[in-house]
Each structure stands twice: as C-alpha cells, then as structure tokens.
C-alpha cells in the first residue's frame, strides 16, 4: 500500500521528465510529414489525415469491437504466459536438474520464428481465437519463463545464510529475502513479454482470423486504404506506449530503486 502511494507521489515528476520523449515524438511526426510531401498521400498519408481518420474510427463502434477482440486474445495469451511462465520458471529455478533440462526447450521456443508457430497453429486449431492465443503464448511464455528461472537461480546464498542466522520464519524469508530479488528479474520479463504478446497478436490475426485489429489491417491493406492502415498502426503503437510508459515504467522505477 505504502508502495502504491509512493508510485503515485512520484508520478508527476516522472511525467515531467518525459518532455524529451515528447519532443522526439514530435520530431518523428515532422519527418513523417516530410515523407508525405515527398512521396504523396497514397504511399504515406500526412499525419494530419491519419489522425483525422483515427478520430472518426474511434467514434465507430465496430472498430472498438475489433480492438476489444484483439485485447481479449492478447490478455488471455499473455495472462496464461504470465502465470505459467512465472510459476514454472520459479520451479525450474529451484531444481538444478529442471533448469538444465529446460534450457534446450527454451532455446527451441525462442529460436523458432513466430510465423512458423502461426502456420502450425492454423493446422492444429483452424482459424480462430485458439490459433492466435496459442501463438501469443508460445512467443511470450519463454521470455517470462527465463526471467523467473534466472531470478531464482541467482538468489544469493550469503543472504540465505544471513536469513538462517536470524531465524527468519518462512514467510519473512520469502517476502523479504527471495521475492524482491526474483521480482527484479521477473518484472522486466513481464514487460518484454507483454510487448511481444502485443506484436504477435496482430501478426497472428492478420494471417489467421477474420476479426480483430490484425484482420482489419489485412482488409485495409487489400483496399489500399493507407490512412486507415496507418491509423490502425497508431492505435497499436499508442496503446503499447501507454501501457509501457504510463503504467509499467513508473512501477519499474520504484521496484528497482534499490538497484545500482
């Protein structure tokens, strides 16, 4: 609780530090506009046109429906990865054999291109929610798993010994000695897992479903509707930036305050 209050208290200062980021976004938009003037509206619509399209789209209920479908798939896939990746990673980390055995599996999961997973999932599950969710899980699970595994494997034996010398009861050992260390590994892994999930969900939808934002992207592409395409891209990037910079980054800062 104390923690949440501290995050909220430091939030304005954090926002203030974001001026640099905002300036660079505006710079980016300026270059975008130059690109529009050079190549024409068919190839690259102007930022203004894109944002106009975006506003009309956001007033359209059917667009929100697509966004919700995508959100649902991404959250289910990411949620499952988060729960199972963290738990299995912890478990594997506590047993040397398990962590050695899991390494090749992780390598396969990480090394296999997502597009190959999508194709396989289409064969196994057909065209629908399962295919997308499966792909999201396969892509984000190993990242979280490895984070949890490393967090557990790198626990400091000296601190465990110290905890024993003060006869810490098990709940203190867990919350005061193990958890903060493991969390400092798992949390960044959650963040990258989330970014991965959000990218993969669009890709899987584009190839394997007829609804969701990815599918909308496929439709707008086939109609050569560049403003809509770009507006969709802006939604995807905007939502990711919102989650990452407004929600996760402030938490991460507080959580890692004690680090060098």
């Amino acid at each position: 609780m104390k923690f949440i209050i501290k995050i909220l208290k430091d939030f304005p200062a954090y926002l203030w530090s974001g001026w640099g980021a905002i300036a660079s976004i505006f710079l980016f938009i300026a270059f975008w506009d130059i690109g529009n003037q050079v190549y024409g509206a068919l190839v690259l619509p102007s930022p203004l046109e894109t944002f106009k399209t975006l506003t009309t789209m956001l007033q359209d209920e059917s667009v929100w429906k697509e966004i919700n479908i995508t959100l649902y798939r991404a959250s289910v896939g990411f949620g499952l990865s988060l729960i199972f990746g963290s738990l299995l990673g912890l478990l594997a980390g506590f047993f040397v054999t398990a962590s050695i055995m899991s390494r090749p599996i992780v390598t396969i999961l990480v090394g296999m291109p997502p597009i190959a997973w999508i194709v396989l999932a289409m064969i196994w599950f057909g065209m629908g929610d399962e295919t997308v969710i499966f792909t999201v899980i396969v892509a984000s699970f190993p990242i979280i798993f490895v984070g949890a595994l490393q967090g557990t494997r790198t626990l400091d034996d000296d601190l465990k010994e110290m905890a024993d010398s003060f006869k810490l009861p098990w709940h203190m050992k867990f919350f005061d000695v193990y958890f903060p260390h493991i969390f400092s590994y798992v949390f960044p892994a959650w963040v990258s897992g989330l970014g991965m999930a959000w990218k993969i969900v669009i890709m899987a939808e584009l190839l394997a479903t007829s609804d969701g934002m990815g599918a909308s992207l496929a439709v707008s592409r086939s109609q050569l509707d560049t403003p809509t395409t770009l507006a969709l891209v802006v939604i995807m990037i905007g939502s990711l930036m919102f989650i990452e910079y407004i929600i996760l980054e402030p938490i991460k800062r507080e959580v890692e305050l004690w680090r060098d």
Partner: protein
Amino acid sequence: MERLEVKGLNHHFGFTEILRDINFTLEKGQMLSIVGPSGGGKTTLLHLCAGLLDVEEGKVTNTFASNSFAFQEGRLLPWKNVIDNIALGLLAKGEKTSIAIEKSKKIALRFGLEESDFEKFPKDLSGGMRQRVSFARALVVEPSLLFLDEPFSALDIGLKKELQTVLIEMIANKEISILFITHDLMEAIRLSDEILLLKADPGHIVKKFTYSLPQNERDDKFVYGESAKILQDAEIIDTFELELK
C-alpha cells in the same frame, strides 16, 4: 550455565584442510577473540560455531539462549533501507513493527548513523556505514551470544573506538558473551578476556593469551604494553610473518 564448547573440531572444503583440532570454551559474560592472518579459516570457524556450516568432525556445543551474527561483508538486504535492515532480526522474533522500528532507530543513532541515512538503501552507504548497520542488526536483538566477524575492519579510528566502547560497556555489565574475530591484535588486546592465535594452513590454534584486567580499566598504555610483549613472541612473528613486513 550458558557456554559454547568446541572440541576436536576439524574442517575440510573439498580436499583442502581448513581447520585442524580446534578446542576452546567460551563462558557466559566472556569475550573470546580469535586472531590470525586472513585466509586462516577464522570465518569458517565462526560459521561452524554459529551452526551456519555443518560440523563434520568434532563437536560444537552451544547452550546460549539466543545468538546473532554480524557478517564480515555486512550481508544487508539490498532492497531494504537502513532501518528496515536493522529491524529484520527483531521482526523475525515477532516484535511489533512499530516497536522494532523504534528500537532500530535508537540503535542506529547510537552507532553513529544519522537520521538522513535511515531511508537509504545499502548501495548508497559507504563500507563503514554498512558495517555499522550490520553490527546494529546483530546487537538490537539483544542476544546472549554474539558472533562478530571483523565488524570494525572498514571503520575509521574514531568510530572504531566508539563501537568498541559500546562492547566494553556491555561486557562490563555482563550483558553478553562474544566470540570475536579480528586480524587486528591491538583491538583484540583491548577487548578480550582471552585471545586464541590461529595459524594458517591448516588453521590451528598455536597460542592462547588471557587478560584478567577488566576491559573498562584498560588504557592505551596497557594495550601498547601488552602488544609489545606479545610481538616479541616468536610464534606470533611466525604467524603474522606476512603482515608485519
């Protein structure tokens, strides 16, 4: 009667013999120091006595009601601030949080930490400050036996003296028994009822010195005099050979 008794203690790490045939007894209210060159197995011996390492050969009997440990490297929790680190042992004993924080603040001030340091994380502390926090964490639980592993090695002279005074006071009041490790002979002479000289490769006790003058009556003259006496001892010169050069 509370006491710590070590009998015929041997220890190996792998095939390396670290300790050979260690024998001593620490009685209640006593301060026993183990002095020796670094790498001699002092830390290992202390860990064996405190039950942090399993005894392989020999016997360690500890009948003290409670004990606590100040580690050579501090071993503070990096994600807790100074006060929360100090309070750790109190909370583990089931002390109420508000009382634990109160006691921790008091002892922190007594050990030369300042109020502005209370919220700092260990990464923002100097080596000496970390040692003080570790020392405070071990003392605040008021153990009947205290294990100290070179607790003052990173402190400057003034502060070292201050903390030594704290210990001397506690010994004079018979509040505590201490097993103390140092490589500083003068420090040992100032504080101990008994000094064991541990020689390296493998660690074994070569000499034993006892001092009956109460600690709070020992002055610099006494310490220097006794040091000079000891330093004429051939065994000592041999043990500390490397360090005297």
